[in-house]
């Protein structure tokens, strides 16, 4: 049962890899699937590690005194810590060609996130707040029907990933705009689905909103940059 997280991670990895493979055949600007995969994988693993340490510190657990607690990611990973940690590790790895590599990995990152959310089917964690909508689902032994919020997020992210990949392949977007679109999609979808998520202390809505605004800013910059070039 504890291995369901690994299964969800495997689904996420497979979705990201399939997207990179498809893009390699359809004009991904980076044209280097292996490197993009490695950069994405290292950034993700480092992000989870950093996010877990941040979550421990926030909970008042000393990671040096209790180093084994770090591997218990089910206990909580800070979304803010993981996202910023992954971004920092990505920036270090892609420092020579940051924008091109960020664009190259953007659709795969969204596909990976879609796969991760689809992994709720394996983890048994798709259900959210109560709902009377026709597609609402009740958990076993319950009469309370609920939003399948994990499926909402997975579908929206998958649509965003496919749309972005198509745009990159057939429309030649301005440099930097695919990465900005990926940030906007990921943050916007998390922001939209957060009210349906069951939560003890609430998700980092401020962080999703900040990322959304930052993504819009980068998108505007990339469009203006192309027009003035």
């Amino acid at each position, binding site marked *: 049962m504890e291995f369901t997280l690994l299964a969800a991670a495997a689904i996420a990895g497979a979705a990201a890899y399939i997207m990179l493979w498809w893009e390699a055949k359809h004009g991904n600007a980076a044209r280097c699937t292996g490197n993009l995969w490695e950069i994405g994988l290292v950034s993700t693993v480092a992000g989870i590690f950093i996010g877990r340490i941040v979550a421990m510190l926030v909970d008042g657990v000393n990671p040096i005194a209790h180093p084994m607690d770090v591997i*218990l990611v089910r206990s909580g990973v800070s979304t803010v810590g993981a996202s910023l940690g992954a971004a920092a590790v990505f920036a270090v790895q892609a420092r020579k060609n940051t924008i091109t590599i960020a664009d190259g990995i953007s659709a795969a990152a969204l596909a990976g996130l879609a796969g991760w959310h689809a992994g709720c089917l394996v983890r048994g964690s798709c259900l959210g707040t109560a709902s009377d909508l026709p597609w609402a689902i009740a958990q076993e032994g319950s009469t309370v029907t609920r939003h399948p919020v994990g499926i909402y997020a997975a579908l929206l992210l998958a649509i965003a990933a496919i749309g972005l990949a198509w745009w990159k392949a057939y429309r030649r977007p301005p440099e930097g705009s695919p990465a900005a679109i990926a940030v906007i999609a990921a943050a916007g979808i998390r922001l939209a689905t957060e009210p349906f998520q069951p939560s003890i202390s609430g998700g980092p809505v401020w962080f999703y909103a900040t990322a959304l605004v930052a993504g819009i800013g980068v998108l505007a910059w990339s469009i203006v940059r192309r027009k003035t070039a």
Partner: protein
Amino acid sequence: MFRIALTLLAIALLAGACSSSEPVEGIEPPSPVTSEELQALLADSTGPVVVNVWASWCTPCRSEAPLIGRAATEYADDVLFIGLDVRDTPEGATAFIAEFFPDAPITHLSDASGQVPTDLGGSRGVPLTFFFRPGGELSYLHFGVIDERTLALQIDELVNG
């Protein structure tokens, strides 16, 4: 790189070795409870009850404890939280409570034999989290470390179900 890793490992081992389970002043050790007593308490309950089974020697219990403490504080008006400490020492238990639940509204009980969770329908492994409806009907049983989404969902089932 190897030296840095070795130094960090040495610091971690040293810090781990320095942690101890001294008795903590001001924290009462959990009261002993039998299966019959706990089942009677659940049967008499007029509201939902969450029973979290833990032990101070259990690393996964340590990792989920802050979340349990936050949930107990957040749902103090709606749900009774019981912390069931199993196969533990009073010193270890009080140190654990002082570290993770100093102010959380949790009723702490102890079971030196470790038999109570099994009698409730669980197992001898820890951590375990039971969710009981009013009157003691088991709504959900979670084996292992519980995550925030699952805990929030099952509490919502108890409160609004």
